């Protein structure tokens, strides 16, 4: 683990030209502009300061994690990026463009996908339909041409996209629940479906809010594998919030720590974990997990 800790060394290792990732190639070449940049973001709700002057950059092709105590403003930060909240001050740039004021719905189109901390699936739809909703901005046929399904090409389009969606389903190993109603799935499966839905957007940047919460070790392993594959093979940049330090340490290239809405540290996982302030505010001293991390994990 320690050996490949340097994020720049790890960044998109094997761009796979045959892979389904649309943006797989983009991360190659000279260190391009960061895919995402938050500039002095401040967010207030009445008296509550959820974020105070937070700046950071996410590089193309990396796995970037945000950690921090509960209520530190992590989700709020992600909400600012995905458009749910509008920063009170500061700016957010994506792919070089200022998106601070871009309406939420337009962000899917420019390549931002996300999952939610509290599950937000379409509970009465089948898993398949949930994921197809993810394709929304890629589909062209509206109700006008959709009603005469067979005549004006809606069917052809549906089938083409269905094929791609099935690939995502295979990849995330949820074939067996394809036709189940999303609302009846267990927590862990729902998280997976949510991920599938976000992936279906074909995002360049995928925001994951606590993807491992409520999972057991085995499932976390699966989830970690999916995230890594998305990052490495599908070429997606990943911004992740996670409380499981093991996961954060192992799969992120860089980590940012928030506390009380302020950024208190940023850097490689090891560097951040070594920060005494972080240890105190977030992990608590003499944490067993920290011990684990300090020891080299077996490959």
């Amino acid at each position, binding site marked *: 683990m320690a050996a490949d800790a340097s994020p720049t060394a790890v960044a998109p290792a094997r761009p796979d030209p045959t892979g389904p990732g649309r943006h797989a190639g983009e991360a190659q070449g000279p260190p391009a502009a960061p895919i995402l940049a938050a500039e002095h973001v401040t967010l207030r709700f009445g008296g509550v300061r959820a974020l105070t002057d937070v700046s950071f950059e996410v590089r193309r092709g990396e796995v970037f994690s945000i950690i921090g105590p509960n209520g530190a403003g992590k989700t709020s930060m992600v909400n600012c990026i995905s458009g749910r909240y509008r920063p009170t001050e500061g700016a957010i740039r994506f792919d070089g463009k200022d998106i601070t004021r871009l309406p939420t719905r337009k962000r899917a189109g420019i390549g931002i996908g996300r999952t939610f901390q509290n599950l937000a699936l379409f509970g009465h739809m089948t898993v398949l339909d949930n994921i197809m909703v993810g394709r929304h901005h890629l589909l062209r046929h509206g109700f006008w041409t959709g009603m005469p399904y067979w005549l004006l090409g809606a069917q052809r389009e549906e089938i083409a996209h269905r094929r791609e969606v099935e690939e995502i389903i295979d990849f995330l190993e949820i074939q067996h629940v394809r036709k189940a109603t999303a609302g009846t799935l267990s927590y*862990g499966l729902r998280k997976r479906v949510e991920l599938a839905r976000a992936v279906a957007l074909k995002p360049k940047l995928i925001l994951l809010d606590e993807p491992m919460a409520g999972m057991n070790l085995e499932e976390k392993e699966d989830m970690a594998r999916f995230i890594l594959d998305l990052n490495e093979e599908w070429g997606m940049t990943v911004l992740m919030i996670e409380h499981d330090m093991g996961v954060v340490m*192992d799969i992120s290239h860089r980590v940012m720590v928030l506390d009380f809405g302020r950024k208190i540290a940023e850097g490689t996982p090891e560097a951040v974990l070594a920060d005494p302030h972080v240890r105190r505010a977030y992990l608590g001293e003499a944490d067993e997990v920290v011990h684990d991390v300090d020891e080299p994990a077996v490959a």
Partner: protein
Amino acid sequence: MSAAPETHPATAAAVAPASPLLEVNNIEVVYNDVILVLRGLSLSVPQGRIVALLGANGAGKSTTLKAISGLLRTEEGEVTRGEIRFAGERIDGTEAHAIVRRGIFQVMEGRRIIADMTCLENLRLGAFTRSDREVKRDIDMVYGYFPRLKERTGLAGYLSGGEQQMLAIGRALMARPKLILMDEPSMGLSPLLVKEVFGIIRKLNEDLGITILLVEQNARMALSVASYGYVMEQGKVVLDGTAAALADNEDVKEFYLGGHGAERKSFKNLKSYKRRKRWL
């Protein structure tokens, strides 16, 4: 399977040979009249102990808890076979609110706080079944455990995920139950708070003598506070034993605790094949 659990050093307070406070015998649960989720599940929770219930996603852990607390029926679910006894009396078929009055309180998965009320109102509601005058003092006790909650005066719906989890646990304390059913209390909490929450769970058990049935994905933590544990798989208990025994089990280590001995697998280099669980 339901062999009398041995005393575990971790719960020194509960040394006395405990009689089962809660007994679940061979229950079967069906959702929507068709989906069979629990198939003959049995477990028992001794008075004054913490018992952990582990299992993969979709194994039916939450369903088990809901079957005990009677909330199953609000989701078109039904206990179709077997029986559930609390302090010797059958409670399957009893209405959920009556079960609360008997002293079983469930902390539901996903926090489920009342978003359009304040923290304080949520806490007061936790004490709905009580009529004594100590509600106020207990509110202070909860604030003592979770000082953050005191500062949040707005609506609970605007709390962060972790704050809501604290509120959900605090609300359970307000009911002063005999048995708390906890569904993944550590979900979404920061490492620091996870430790705190487990500390609180242990304290509740030791100081207040509350019995706890704990569903948890953080198996390491769960087994460290519990005296006995069950592992569920597809609606059945596949393995049970004292917490210590479980923590030593190869499969549990592999699938729940991670790594063998002191070593931890890295999430980075996962093998793509999976070892078969032996209990299946």
